[in-house]
């Protein structure tokens, strides 16, 4: 009821009166009473208990421990020493970590922005009712989504290899001097890696957009056509505004995925050459296990969690404000 005053235009008096009746009504009918037959909160807690125990042991307790650990300097063996927020200020002073944070912006471009653009593009193309075989195209485009990153890495290392197909093409065009081991070059490793992410992610984006488009009324398309809109204007005036909901879901998923990318980087470049493709999660892994500085690793984890949650909430908030 609290939202009613903010939308006075949509809520004429009789509806407010009506809703008051509806609100009171269930208390008198049998629906509520029979519902209370099934509401047995203590029994419910018993049913929930096994899951809750597993969840506490694996997620909740370690999450709290992570915050605690992040305030210490600890090599995993000797006595830990309290360092306060020093592990957090590393984000500004540690060159490796700063580099990793910068790369996150690249990864957002390649793992979120590009896949969304391509996803919109292929969703729009494959779901027009005049186009046959749209579902075949969609199955193909969704295929990379089913592969485990370990396999995606094997596939793309071959494609980017010095004697791989890309370089074969360059050589056959007489551009042999541009043939490179793409993932081993300081300049090219990051974009090459980014494109793997785009390739893998845009199928899911497309799928979510297609499902969103199904709820856009076809009359809107017909109206746009009558008004003389071409396919491009039709896309921007009808399709895109109708996809606000799915867009916020996709944006949340892909941006969070970009921030925490690990598998595909670890399996192709391990953050190299040098630190040219390093990501926060790679730094986390190295600090936690290769050269233990567990407090620093925990601090990266905490920052990732805080950033992820803020971004998720921000996107949800933005999408709600607009609709």
């Amino acid at each position: 009821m609290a939202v009613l005053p903010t939308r006075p235009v949509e809520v004429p008096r009789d509806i407010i009166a009506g809703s008051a009746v509806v609100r009171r009504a269930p208390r008198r009918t049998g629906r509520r009473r029979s519902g209370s037959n099934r509401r047995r909160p203590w029994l419910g807690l018993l049913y929930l208990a096994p899951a809750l125990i597993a969840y506490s042991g694996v997620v909740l307790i370690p999450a709290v421990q992570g915050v605690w650990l992040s305030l210490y300097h600890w090599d995993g063996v000797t006595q830990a020493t309290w360092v306060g927020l020093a592990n957090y200020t590393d984000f500004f002073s540690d060159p490796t970590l700063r580099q990793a944070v910068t790369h996150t912006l690249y990864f957002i471009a390649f793992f979120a922005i590009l896949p969304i653009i391509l996803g919109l593009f292929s969703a729009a193309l494959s779901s027009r009712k005049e186009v046959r075989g749209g579902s075949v195209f969609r199955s193909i485009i969704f295929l990379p989504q089913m592969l485990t990153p370990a396999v995606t890495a094997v596939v793309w290392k071959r494609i980017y290899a010095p004697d791989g197909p890309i370089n074969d093409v360059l050589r056959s065009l007489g551009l042999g001097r541009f043939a490179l081991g793409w993932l081993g070059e300081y300049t090219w490793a990051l974009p090459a890696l980014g494109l793997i992410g785009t390739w893998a992610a845009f199928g899911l984006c497309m799928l979510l957009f297609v499902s969103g488009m199904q709820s856009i009324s076809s009359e809107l398309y017909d109206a746009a056509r009558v008004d003389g809109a071409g396919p491009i204007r039709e896309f921007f005036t009808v399709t895109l505004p109708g996809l606000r909901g799915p867009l916020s879901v996709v944006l949340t998923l892909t941006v969070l995925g970009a921030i925490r990318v690990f598998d595909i980087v670890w399996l192709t470049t391990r953050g190299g050459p040098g630190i040219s493709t390093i990501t926060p999660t790679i730094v986390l892994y190295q600090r936690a296990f290769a050269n233990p500085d567990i407090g620093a690793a925990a601090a990266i984890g905490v920052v990732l969690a805080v950033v992820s949650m803020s971004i998720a909430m921000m996107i949800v908030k933005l999408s709600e404000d607009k609709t």
Partner: protein
Amino acid sequence: MISTREKVSNYVLLVIVALWVLFPLVWVLGVAVSPNISGTLDLAHPQWANFSTAWHLAGFSQYLKSSLLITGTVVTVGTLLAIMSGYAFGVLGVFGEKLFFPLVLLGIMIPMETIVVPMYYDFQSFGITDTYQGIILAHIGMGVSFGAFWMRIAFRAVPNSIADAAAIDGANSWTQLWRVYLPLARPAIFTLVLLSFTWTWNDYFLALILVSDPAHQPLTLGLGAFSGRYLVQTNFLAAAAILISLPVVALCLAFQRQFIRGMLSGAVKE
């Protein structure tokens, strides 16, 4: 409604996108059956035996055993826990629900990377790193949030009248769950099983951290180790990669409709 020219250009663009997606996969499929260990393509002499050679070279039998055991247990136990907690939140109500429900949902937002370091040291002090129990417990615990959330929605959709009839018949909560609610929530459970299977089978990060003993590692780590050891035998590596993708790809294609529906409604997790 649309002109032929527009239709043709539509197809052309779609074909370009589809080719870009397919090309790397088809290329690697070609490499997998080529005789050259350098990884160059030679389709004139297809070597179908590459798949079995790769299987033996990579020692996949042991990894497969681990993958099946881990995935099988996680899917079974995880689904059971999801059903019970979904029933608790969606039907029975939970004492302290205002605290517990947001707390459980929080797990969807916390990245795995955040908890994995303290979790590793906890597991180490309990002596369950490098064991099946450890990795299985980790997967199950991390799946709780999504499972509870997912099954709660499914059970809430069951019409009250049906459950009321069962309650009048004197069925207790356990019998009601299995006889009344489960059959009605079957599509949701099916999707949950598929998603849980895919996530567990495809996991690399958790296993990398919790299991360093090759005897307990899943196939994804086996492939990683194989690509490290046999860097030069690219054709076998490609064959091995195709072998470990087959179960998930086959399942997805077989249950494409349900799977895609699951991905759509379950997209919160990733």
